[in-house]
């Protein structure tokens, strides 16, 4: 899995809904730090958290998270 990295659309989805990281964190039931580290790609969330976030935005997990092959 070393040649792949996880990119996400959280920032875009937040901008569409005009919500802050803190508001999203409260809705999902995690801390703002967790949202921030996921958004910046520093932390890879569990499947459960990824599904919860995708459900919140009303999109599929694969629309929210994409596995990108490193060059």
């Amino acid at each position, binding site marked *: 899995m070393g040649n792949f990295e996880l990119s996400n659309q959280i920032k875009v989805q937040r901008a569409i809904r005009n919500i802050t990281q*803190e508001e999203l964190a*409260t809705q999902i039931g*995690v*801390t703002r*730090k967790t949202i921030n580290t996921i958004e910046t790609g520093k932390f890879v969330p569990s499947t459960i958290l990824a599904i919860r976030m995708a459900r919140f935005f009303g999109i599929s997990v694969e629309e929210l998270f994409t596995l990108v092959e490193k060059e």
Partner: protein
Amino acid sequence: METSLIERLDKLRYDLLKWCTIGWGIWFGTFILKDLIVSPTIISLATWIGLAGWLIFIINLIKFMKLRRELKGDLKVQAALNDELQQLNWFKSSEIGYSIMIAVTATLFAMSQFISISANLVTEIILYFGVLSGLIASLFYNRD
């Protein structure tokens, strides 16, 4: 659930952890120092500094435990504060604390082959660096 409640509690927890680390560092550090020095003036000074460190440590430890007890009823907030990133950070911090403990033990063991070290001092040094490194690692991983 208020928007900033988790955020405020998270910040409070971080501050308490920070002061516990400072308190532990001063208190136990001076405690070990007293075993190594002979000057009565420095021992007296170290005792007072150590006392201040002990107070910082104990007061913040009590506050930390009180916060945990207060949150016992609120499962939603509790779950948010102990989310998966937090759990991972605790795990990584404990791992660092444990590794440092092993490294200090090995170093002291190697030193004991050449010089005589009191068993009491060895135990104190291992405990000091093990706990302190775990706490510092926790502060590092949970920083904003």
